């Protein structure tokens, strides 16, 4: 079984994003970039499926700038077999466009499972996986916290409001992963070295033949209102008094 894992290069989750003064976006110059944390979880799950003998090949794919090769090398060091970069240097693609590019890659690669992060921590759209499933007319299992693959189906436990839901999707299927699915491994030094020799195919966005036109125009990016500074109280008694008399919330 072949597994396709789309991975996105995003701002490192430890970095506090700063909005540019001209309101055109978030300042990413000289900012540490990493693999989207959810995508690390997706790669880890794919590697575990391979270790269990369920998956036979793992292909990582990223749609993004030249530097996204680093992100793909990370996926290779974690255990992916091959990587594909769809190079899109000057454009930030919207989820629908990313899904269309991924659909074209799926047509070439014919994976039985596409494992993605549920959400990228920059765009926060939580959309690409569901959109890809719709375009492919495949079933979807989102927000997975447990995945079992057997007999041509994926049994997936999903994190939903109020608790957990389990569904069974016939393969091929799209699965998006949530935080509690697993804890991603750190790539070992020998594996990082080995990853440098694994195949990484670069395609130009135009060659994929997907419609990537923007549907949304970003008018501005602004900073949210800051909260006024608060105060420290000395005792629990003070706190209750202030909440009653000053804040009026008790």
């Amino acid at each position, binding site marked *: 079984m072949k597994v396709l894992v789309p991975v996105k290069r995003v701002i490192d989750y430890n970095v506090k994003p700063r909005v540019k003064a001209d309101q055109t976006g978030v300042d990413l110059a000289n900012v540490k970039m990493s693999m989207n944390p959810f995508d690390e979880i997706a790669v880890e799950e794919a590697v575990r499926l391979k270790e269990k003998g369920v998956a036979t090949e793992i292909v990582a794919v990223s749609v993004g700038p030249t530097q996204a090769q680093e992100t793909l090398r990370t996926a290779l060091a974690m255990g992916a077999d091959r990587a594909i970069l769809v190079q899109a240097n000057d454009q930030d693609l919207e989820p629908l466009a990313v899904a269309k590019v991924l659909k074209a890659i799926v047509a070439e690669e014919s994976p039985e499972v596409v494992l993605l992060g549920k959400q990228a*921590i920059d765009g926060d759209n939580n959309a690409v996986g*569901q959109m*890809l499933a719709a375009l492919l007319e495949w079933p979807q299992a989102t927000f997975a916290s447990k995945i079992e693959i057997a007999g041509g189906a994926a049994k997936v436990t999903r994190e939903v409001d109020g*608790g957990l839901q389990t569904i069974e999707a016939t393969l091929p299927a799209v699965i998006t992963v949530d935080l509690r699915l697993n804890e991603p491994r750190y790539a070992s030094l020998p594996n990082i070295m080995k990853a440098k020799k694994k195949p990484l195919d670069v395609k130009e966005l135009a060659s994929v033949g997907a419609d990537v036109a923007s549907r*949304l125009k*970003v008018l501005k990016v602004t900073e*949210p209102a800051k909260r006024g500074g*608060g105060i420290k109280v000395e005792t*629990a*008694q003070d706190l209750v008094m202030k909440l009653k008399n000053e804040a009026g919330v008790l």
Partner: protein
Amino acid sequence: MAVLVIADHDNAALKDNTHKAVTAAQKISGDIDVLVAGQGAQAAADAAGKIEGVRKVLLAESAELDQGLAEAFEALVVPLMANYDAVLIPSTSLGKNIAPRIAAKLDVAQISDAVEVVDANTFVRPIYAGNALETVQSSDAKKVITVRPTAFKAAAEGGSASVETIAAPAAPAKVKFVEQQIVQSERPELGAAKIVVSGGRAMGSAEEFQRVIEPLADKLGAAVGASRAAVDAGYAPNDYQVGQTGKVVAPDLYIAVGISGAIQHLAGMKDSKVIVAINKDGDAPIFQIADYGLVADYKTAVPELMSALDGSAK
């Protein structure tokens, strides 16, 4: 131009998120229909008809809709969109699951987690864990919008729209529901509560979380939340998680106990009206956004808080 709002409900009752999505819809059009999809959901549909400003309620019932299967919602909603210029869905786990699938089928962008409707084509949405707000203008003929409920006031009651039952689609062929474990709780719902008490990694165990956080919440009539660290460690169930990748809450009062204040956590609660932090580390980042900070060990501070609350009868 008419718009459709997909209701958040549990069949028996309508949730407030629906009223909030209606408020967002009012900025787009005066012709608002509400779709109630579930099973045995007549009561929820009747309630939707009572929201002020609602023109008509559509009721569709099947097991797969009740189970929230995205494929069933796609089959129901995509054809309906011939009659509407926009569909708005509260960004619950159901909304997040189904809306992108509907958008892709309509070949339009999704406006994810709108916090403001500027006009029928222009929306504000948080990106980067709420550290930036993006104003986007859509060029799509039809809009698919998930709505962050905490950003909108609930529409008032006072409507008298009729309920029209529509056919549910055939069951999807490639996916089926297996089982569900939904926690029943007497406490108010996290997303809708006026007061939220959240515990963090400092609790150290599920027993301690239950001993410390839950009684405080119950005394205040509050919902219980948690940081990701507390959830990952198994101190609290996953749907308690507040944050960028958990629930977004904006209660009148948010009390964070033993939570450091990572940006991913702040993303889920920084729009609360009043924030209280109890943390033994005076430099914890949570104090930068707290209105009232108490630098103390929770082991002494929470019992003191409990007795101070007792002493100041409501």
